[in-house]
C-alpha cells in the first residue's frame, strides 16, 4: 500500500506541473494590462509601465512562469488582486473557499445519504414500482441543471419552510445552517441521482453473486446480507462515483452560489472575470484544480484500499 501510494503521488507531480502551466498560460492570455487595471484608466503611462516593470509583467514568459512556480511552491502565493486594492488573492480565496467547501461538504452528505439509500432500495426491490420511480427521478436529476432546481426551491420551497431565499449569514451556526440548507439540498439531490444510479447497478451486480447466496443460506438476516456483505463489495464503483461527484459538487457549487447569492469561490471567480482581475481568475481556477487533483488521488488510493488487486496491478 505504501509503495502504491508513493507511486500515485509521483505520478501526480507532472499533472500538477502541467496544470500550473496551463493556468499560467491562461493568465498570460487574458487581455488587459495589469498595471492599467490596477492603477486606473487615468494613470500616466510611465507609472503603469513602472508598475508592470516592478512586478515583472514585462519579463519574458518563461521567466515569469519560473517566478510563478517558485512563489506557488514556496508559500502558495497566488499573487495580488488587480482590482481589489491591496488584497492578496490568497486572502480573498480563503474567505470564499470556506463558504464553498462548507456548501460542498454539506451537499455531499445529502447526496450520500439519499443516493446510497435510493440505490440500495432500488437494487433490493428491483423491478418494482419503488425501483422504477426512484430511477426515473434519478435520470431526471441527472438531466436537471442545478441552478434551475435552485430557482424552483427559491420559488416554491423557501416560503413554505420559512427559509431565507438567498444570501449567506454566518453570525452563528444556526443561521448559517439555515442559509446553506436550500443550496446544499439543490446541489446534493442532483448529485445523489448519479450516485443512486451507480449504487443500484453495483449492488445488483453483487447481489447475484454466490457468496450472497451463501450468506443467505447461513440464515443471516436480509439487512446484514445487504448492508454488510453486498454493500462492502459494491463499494469500489460507489467510491469512484462519490469521488467524482465531489469534483462535480465543486463545479456545481459555482452555479449554486450564483443562484443563492452565496459569497463563495465561484462567485468570486465570475465577478473577477467581469472585472478582468486576472490573478483572481486564475488563482481561483488553480485552487479548485488542486482540490480536484487531491480528491481524485484520494479516490484512487481508496480504490487500492478496498481492492488489494489494484495495488498489485503494475500496468
Amino acid at each position, binding site marked *: 500500500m505504501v509503495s502504491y501510494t508513493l507511486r500515485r503521488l509521483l505520478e501526480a507531480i*507532472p*499533472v500538477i506541473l502541467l496544470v500550473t502551466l496551463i493556468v499560467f498560460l*491562461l493568465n498570460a492570455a487574458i487581455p488587459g494590462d495589469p498595471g492599467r487595471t490596477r492603477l486606473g484608466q487615468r494613470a500616466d503611462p510611465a507609472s503603469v509601465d513602472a508598475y508592470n516593470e516592478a512586478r515583472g509583467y514585462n519579463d519574458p514568459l518563461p521567466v515569469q512562469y519560473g517566478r510563478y512556480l517558485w512563489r506557488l511552491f514556496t508559500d502558495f502565493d497566488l499573487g495580488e488582486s488587480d482590482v481589489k486594492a491591496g488584497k492578496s488573492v490568497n486572502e480573498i480565496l480563503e474567505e470564499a473557499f470556506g463558504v464553498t467547501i462548507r456548501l460542498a461538504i454539506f451537499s455531499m452528505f445529502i447526496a450520500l445519504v439519499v443516493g446510497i439509500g435510493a440505490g440500495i432500495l432500488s437494487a433490493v426491490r428491483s423491478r418494482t414500482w419503488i425501483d422504477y420511480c426512484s430511477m426515473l427521478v434519478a*435520470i431526471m436529476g441527472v438531466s436537471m*441543471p442545478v441552478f*434551475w432546481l435552485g430557482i424552483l426551491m427559491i*420559488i416554491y420551497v423557501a416560503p413554505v419552510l420559512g427559509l431565507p431565499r438567498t444570501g449567506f449569514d454566518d453570525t452563528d451556526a444556526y443561521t448559517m445552517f439555515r442559509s446553506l440548507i436550500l443550496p446544499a439540498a439543490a446541489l446534493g439531490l442532483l448529485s445523489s441521482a448519479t450516485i443512486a444510479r451507480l449504487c443500484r447497478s453495483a449492488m445488483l451486480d453483487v447481489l447475484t453473486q454466490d457468496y450472497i447466496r451463501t450468506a443467505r443460506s447461513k440464515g443471516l438476516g436480509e439487512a446484514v446480507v445487504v448492508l454488510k456483505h453486498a454493500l462492502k463489495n459494491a463499494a469500489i464503483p460507489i467510491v469512484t462515483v462519490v469521488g467524482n461527484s465531489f469534483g462535480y459538487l465543486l463545479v456545481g457549487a459555482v*452555479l449554486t452560489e450564483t443562484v443563492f447569492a452565496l459569497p463563495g469561490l465561484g462567485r468570486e471567480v*465570475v465577478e473577477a472575470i467581469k472585472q478582468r482581475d486576472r490573478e483572481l481568475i486564475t488563482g481561483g481556477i488553480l485552487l479548485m484544480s488542486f482540490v480536484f487533483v487531491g480528491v481524485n488521488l484520494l479516490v484512487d488510493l481508496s480504490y487500492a484500499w478496498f481492492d488489494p488487486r489494484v495495488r498489485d496491478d503494475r500496468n
Partner: protein
Amino acid sequence: MTATNRGRSPTQMAFKRLRRNRLAMLGALVVMMVTVLAFFPSWLVPSHADGAGPYGFAEQFRGAHEYQQPPGIPGHPLGTDELGRDVWTRIVYGAGISLRIGLVGTLVALCIGLVLGSIAGFRGGRIDTLISRLTDTFFAFPSLLLMIGILAVFEKPNEIVIFAALGVVGWPGVARIVRGQVISLRGSEFVLGARALGQSDTRILIGHVLPNCLGPVVVVSTLMIAGNILAEAGLSFLGIGLPPPAPSWGRMLVDSKEYWVDMPWMGIFPGLSIMITVLGFNLLGDGLRDAFDPKMKD
C-alpha cells in the same frame, strides 16, 4: 436462406435492441422534436426572438400590458418577459442555440479525441505516455472552471469560442475511450491480417480499427451532447456565455432573476426546456449504451 434466419451484423442487432427500449425511444422522440424546433423555428413562431416585430423588443413600447404577462394570455402561451418578449418564441429560438452548441462542441471534442486517442493507443510507447499525461492533466480541471478560464481570454465570446472551449474540455473523455478500444483491437486477427496484406498504419487505423470503436464513441457522444447543453446553459447562467440578446435558455433564467418569485414562469419554462432536452439525449445515450454493450445492462 430465408428472411427469418438471415445473418445480422452486431450493429443491426444493437439497433434492434435499441428499438425495443421504450425509454430510449422516448429520448429519441424528444431529440427529434428539439431538432425540429431548432431547424424550423419559423414553423412554430412568427418572428425572430430578439428582433423587432410582434414578439420582439418593439413590443415594450406598445404599452405596459404586454410586459410580464402570465402564461395563457392570447398570443403568449408561456407569458412574456420583463421586456415584453414572448417566452415561447425565445424558447423555440433558444433550442437552436442549445442544439448547435451541444452538437458542434461534441464534434470538436470528437475530432481531437479520436485523433489523439487513436494515435496513443495504436502507437503506444513514448507518444502514448505523453498523450495520456496530457489527458490526465485536462481531467484534473473541473470542466466548468476550465471553460470559464478559456472564455475569460475573450472579450465577447461568440459561438465559435464556446465550441472551442467545449472541445478543449471534452476531448480527454473521448481520447481515453478511443485509446482503450484501439489498444484492445490492436492485436486482433483482422489487424494482423491487414498488416500481412501490407496495408499502412493509417489505413489499418482508419479502415479497420476505428470502425470497430464506433459503438462506444456513439454512446459517449450522445451523452456528451447532453453535458454540453447543460454546460452552455450554465455558462450563460453565470453571464459569461453568449451575450444578450441571444435567447439562450441559461441567459433567460439569469436575466429574469429579479422576477422569479413574483413571476415564476420566467424562471420555470427555460429551465424546463433545458431539462427536457438534456433528458432526451441522456435517455437515448443510456439506451445506446445498453444496446451496444448488452453486458453493461443489469
